């Protein structure tokens, strides 16, 4: 499903964010990616999303060589995946409802179906009453949940989430985790989740990949992680 082969990423300013990453994630897996700040987690996600091109090596997702995609084909590829960005990336001039609906309009879904589905996911993330608010009128945690709702709206094959609970309180984090686990279980969605929340990682044990300075330093199949300081 997801496969990185000797993938490295060096930014134009000379930072080696990822070094020779080899990684295979099967369909239906739920994987945490953890690591200290600046260790390359978001860069890994940007490679999977096609936003950045690997400096060397290959990135394959749903059978597509993401790094070699033509610019105009990138959006089509992205319909297979849902991404929760660390900085949310909501359209500032669209309401919450419209933001989520936009991700469904692009795949040409019928209008009434869109309305239904948007209501559904807004309910799932607990934002029923914020449909008409603009992103600037939301709290940090509410914006984050809109980003989650948008990413899962079109039932993508792969869900990639960059710190989806970073701005949520523990109770809400647990709810979101439950939601992601349910999607993973019921829809067989492959989930890759970057997080700093060690209590969460230890509570819901999953395969855990540990990044440090651009290298994979651990790949714990049984999950759980004890901090070594």
């Amino acid at each position, binding site marked *: 499903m997801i496969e990185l082969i000797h993938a490295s990423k060096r930014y134009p300013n000379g930072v080696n964010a990822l070094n020779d990453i080899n990684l295979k994630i099967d369909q239906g897996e739920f994987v945490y990616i953890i690591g200290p700040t600046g260790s390359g987690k978001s860069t890994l996600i940007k490679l999977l*999303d*096609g*936003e*950045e*091109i690997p400096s060397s090596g290959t990135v394959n997702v749903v059978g597509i060589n993401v790094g070699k995609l033509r*610019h*105009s084909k*990138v*959006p*089509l590829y*992205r*319909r297979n995946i849902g*991404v929760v*960005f660390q900085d949310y*990336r*909501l*359209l*500032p*001039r669209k309401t919450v409802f419209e933001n989520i609906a*936009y*991700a469904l*309009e*692009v*795949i*040409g879904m*019928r*209008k009434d179906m869109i309305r239904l589905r948007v209501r559904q996911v807004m309910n799932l993330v607990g934002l029923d009453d914020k449909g008409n608010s603009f992103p600037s009128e939301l709290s940090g945690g509410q914006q984050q949940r809109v980003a989650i709702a*948008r990413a899962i709206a*079109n039932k993508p094959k792969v869900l990639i989430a960059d710190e989806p609970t970073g701005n949520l309180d523990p109770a809400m984090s647990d709810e979101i985790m439950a939601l992601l686990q349910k999607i993973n279980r019921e829809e067989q969605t492959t989930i890759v989740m970057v997080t700093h929340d060690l209590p969460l990682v230890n509570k819901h044990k999953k395969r855990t990949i540990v990044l440090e300075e651009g290298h994979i330093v651990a790949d714990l199949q049984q999950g759980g992680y004890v901090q070594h300081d």
Partner: protein
Amino acid sequence: MISRFFRPIKEGFYGVGRHAAMSISSASAVTITLLIISIFLIFSFNLQQFTKDVEQSVQIAVMIDYAYEEQSQMDKIGIDIGNIEGVNEVKFSSKEDEFQYYLDGFEDEAQKEVFEPFREDNPMHNAYYVSVEDGSNLKVVADQIAQIEGVDSIDYGGESAVVLVNALNSIRTGGGILAGALSLLAIFLIQNTIKLTIFARSDEIAIMRNVGAKNGFIRSPFLIEGIIIGILGSIIPIMLSVFGYIYLYRIMDGVIISKMFVMIPPHPFVLKIGGILLLIGMAVGLVGSFFSVNKYLRWKR
């Protein structure tokens, strides 16, 4: 299918509304440049009209010698004139017509009476009136006509007519080039403004790509937005041109400086000007949006 068609239109209107400040800025750039273009359009069209009027009014009067009054002789002269290169139209006017025309020139019936006796012993010449295709070779044609056998004399207003026609022609050419260049600059200016408007939203465009929107899907509402801005921006120039021209026409009594320069009557001229302005506004809005969006579509992957 229907929603495919209406979505960009709806989104375009939303876009204009939700970026009100920027939309107003863009639209006012359109307004100002169209005002400038409008002034040039009105000026150019009128100038073109003047030039045509003047060229048509300058004709060569060819008087036929009294010795060549037989029909066949006169016909031959007519044909000869018609064969000269650059001649547009040749009209015959018999000496009787000429006399009548002369008489009609008097307003006073009494004076007409004085000349009436001369009708029998008509002192007028049979004449041809010749108009030329291009006012600027009036003199050349006139000189050739003067060579024809049986031509008594010619009259074409002399040097002054030639100078006037030439002056108008060069103003028209110069003005046309200037108007064209300014219009191009103006169009570039609007495009530039729209680019800035869209620049401020390059983030939005990138986010749209992030959630899987194809380039065409992202572009279409921006195109509609551009057209709407073009239309909004052309309202004031159209109103000002239409009513301004009608007003100007009225206070100027339809002429500029002297009776020689007759202004184009407002109807349907103002509608034509309005239509051109609207078309320019819409086209520039569309084209400007198209290039700008395309530029920022490539900004992020």
